[in-house]
């Protein structure tokens, strides 16, 4: 069973379009994340949700809007796509338990190419 899954795996689209990436985790975790990995492999956190509540919202254009319908899902919607949005987007999840840190489990990534 896949722990963290993302769809689609590849996404090719034109500038100006709107697209969504879906993420689901079956680990029972309460926290989910979106990361962007650029062409130089640099990973940067974009958003994090804990129990459907937004807890991390880094400096990201407001064209990016995360949505968490329940604890097991965190989707990423991107409006008016730009060339610079081309990247690999990773979803991750973890269980936050007080002051302890628990491992983040990553999905396989979605490679977005904007033409």
């Amino acid at each position, binding site marked *: 069973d896949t722990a963290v899954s993302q769809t689609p795996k590849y996404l090719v689209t034109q500038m100006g379009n709107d697209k969504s990436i879906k993420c689901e985790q079956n680990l029972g975790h309460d926290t989910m994340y979106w990361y962007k990995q650029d062409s130089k*492999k640099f*990973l*940067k956190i974009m958003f*994090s949700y804990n129990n459907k509540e937004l807890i*991390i919202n880094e400096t990201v254009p407001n064209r990016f809007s995360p949505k968490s319908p329940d604890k097991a899902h965190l989707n990423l919607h991107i409006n008016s796509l730009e060339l610079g949005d081309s990247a690999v987007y990773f979803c991750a999840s973890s269980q936050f338990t007080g*002051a302890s840190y628990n*491992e983040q489990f*990553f999905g396989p*990534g979605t490679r977005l190419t904007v033409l």
Partner: protein
Amino acid sequence: AQSVTQLDSQVPVFEEAPVELRCNYSSSVSVYLFWYVQYPNQGLQLLLKYLSGSTLVKGINGFEAEFNKSQTSFHLRKPSVHISDTAEYFCAVSFISSGSARQLTFGSGTQLTVLP
């Protein structure tokens, strides 16, 4: 300022040779430390982590790392690498403040290439 630095962007090494991938961090608060591996076209997988206790941490696939608080380092080592270890390796740090340790800050990654 809190930051994570991986000094080597690429490390080529021959098969069965030892390897060390370097990671340094800057922080005024306590930290948790992690190494992740990313195989080509795949997501990230945890290799090992340091939360507390012994400063020498053993992980999967024969990797180990040592936390050195005075040097603010967490270098990753393997005594004998295999071709299958070719991958991108990321050091990540969780800076603990106000009891919150959810966020991970990643280094820029080190591409390990094992040559036959």
